[in-house]
């Protein structure tokens, strides 16, 4: 069996607003659009994914928060309705998700060998989090590939952003071992915003783009600092300053997704593909991808 590999890494933010704005049939509320810069970027990345051969999407999500170890979805199918607890007015999504349980179990096993506390989630009533659903819907609206969802252990809360970085990096190393042994071609997804301070009120029409802007300039400057490092292919440097970024911008990077993905990909020294940046209810959101193949890697924006 040939060695498995990571064929693409995606930074895929999950404000439910982007799904709401797309008006897919699975989502109950309907909109007049909004957040096009982000959505069109997402649409383009989704087209690229269609042109790549892969077996599964592996997603690390901040909205399945666990304090006792790292958990993996461990049943082949989940079918239910996801209602966003924070924005229920815009996200009530009927989902039917297939899970690559073999790959999830292999990752759990490798993580455990690396000293990480782990647990398989095998309760059929469990509701898949809206972070997973939003990022996966935007990257693969046909839902024709199985996924693996990895919970985010909240090390940043219990210890510090530095400890989170270390543990997420260890999880990344474990996951890439599992992928290589599986013989599968895998797309990694780190599901989160960059800066993450929200407005605490909402305009009467959530998609009213005349009201949308970044929470403050400091958040914007920090977000752009990260985008510059991504363009320059300095991912190790980016991960090294991530604890400070997270603290200064209340970054959703606190969950560890980007660190996990970059560690699994060996801290790329090539340019990231930048697909779009836009604020959503004040938070900074970037769609980006890391393509290990120099043949298919593009300068997008």
């Amino acid at each position, binding site marked *: 069996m040939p060695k498995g590999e990571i064929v693409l890494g995606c930074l895929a933010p999950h404000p439910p607003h982007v799904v709401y704005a797309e008006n897919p049939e699975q989502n109950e509320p309907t909109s007049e659009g909004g957040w096009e810069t982000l959505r069109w970027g997402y649409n383009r990345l989704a087209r690229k994914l269609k042109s790549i051969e892969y077996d599964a999407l592996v997603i690390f999500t901040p909205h399945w928060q666990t304090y006792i*170890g790292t958990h993996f979805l461990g049943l082949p199918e989940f079918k239910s*309705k996801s*209602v966003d607890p*924070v924005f229920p007015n815009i996200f*009530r999504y009927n989902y039917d998700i297939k899970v690559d349980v073999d790959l999830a179990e292999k990752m759990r096993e490798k993580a455990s060998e690396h000293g990480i506390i782990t647990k398989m989630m095998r309760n059929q009533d469990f509701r898949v989090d809206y972070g997973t659903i939003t990022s996966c819907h935007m990257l693969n609206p046909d839902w024709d590939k199985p996924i693996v969802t990895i919970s985010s252990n909240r090390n940043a809360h219990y210890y510090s952003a530095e400890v989170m970085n270390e543990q997420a990096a260890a999880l990344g190393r474990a996951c890439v071992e599992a992928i290589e042994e599986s013989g599968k071609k895998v797309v990694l997804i780190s599901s989160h915003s960059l800066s993450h301070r929200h407005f*605490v009120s909402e305009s009467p029409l959530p998609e009213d783009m005349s009201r949308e802007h970044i929470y403050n300039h400091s958040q914007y400057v920090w977000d752009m600092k990260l985008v510059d490092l991504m363009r320059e292919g300095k991912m190790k440097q980016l991960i090294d300053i991530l604890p400070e970024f997270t603290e200064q911008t209340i970054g959703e990077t606190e969950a560890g997704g980007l660190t996990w993905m970059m560690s699994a990909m060996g801290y790329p020294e090539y340019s990231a593909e930048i697909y779009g940046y836009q604020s959503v209810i004040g938070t900074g959101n970037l769609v980006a991808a890391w393509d290990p193949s120099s043949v298919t890697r593009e300068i997008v924006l």
Partner: protein
Amino acid sequence: MEDADILFGIYCPPHPQPLLSPDASEGYAKLRQAFDTCRERIESSDADLIIVYSTTWPSIIGHQIQAHPEPEWVHVDDDFHYLGSMPYKFRMDVDFAECLADSAKERGLHSRTIAYEGFPIDTGSVVALKLLNPDNRIPACIVSSNMYSNRAETIVLGKAIRDALAKQGKKAVAVVVSSLSNRMFTEHIDPTEDRIHSSKDDEWNRKILEFFADGRLEDLSQLSREIHGQIRVQKVVAYKPAWWLAATMGQHNNYDGEVLAYEALHGSGGAVVTLTPSSGSFGDKEFDEDDVEFYHGDRDVLDKGML
């Protein structure tokens, strides 16, 4: 305006063991018994309403209030999914929820009611309502805990609840769902070996419980920032349950307090406490922070050229 009528207050923990695995350890069984005692007291009271403030329901858009008349789902906890599912069907006081949303707005808060099929009611609220009000004999109201809100907003939310109770002339039991110390063990443990995560957490919890037993709720409210720094994992900006409960119950120290149980829940401090308004006072501490009647929002110092 006529004053609000809070018959008594309950402080109880959010984790699901007392509901799903009460026999897994002596401690969980004691917590379950304490919940059962509270249930009996609610049943024998003439309460019209149970108001729940749950620290496991975070919100961003102001303060959310559950207003679906009969929310129904099967809930599963993010961490403790292996203990089983929690099917629920509750009865909400929709009239009160709407009145509270208006009362909160009148005091400057951003607030809205939530009434969607399948809305994910949080673990803490599900555990509390299933154990305290299993037959839905009394309708309930659940309010969220805004993740950015601090003292002023939380106190004003409590006062808005008093306004709404007074307007509707309803008698309520106020329930706050929160751990004391909230650091859990980061590995899976044998429930029979459960204990408070550290001596420091345990000592602080016991000090807080002394205050509760003496009925000194307002003093605990004044100590909230210290409690947050000492024994709360920094998930949110502040330890808000004592602010909310004190403001909702009238901001004083005149209660008969009773600690019904104090046990570890995967390392966190789980306590079931009741506070019943009484006439005698322990005497008030000298309060360091201003009382606040109306929420004026962020002060926007950066926009005012103050730097």
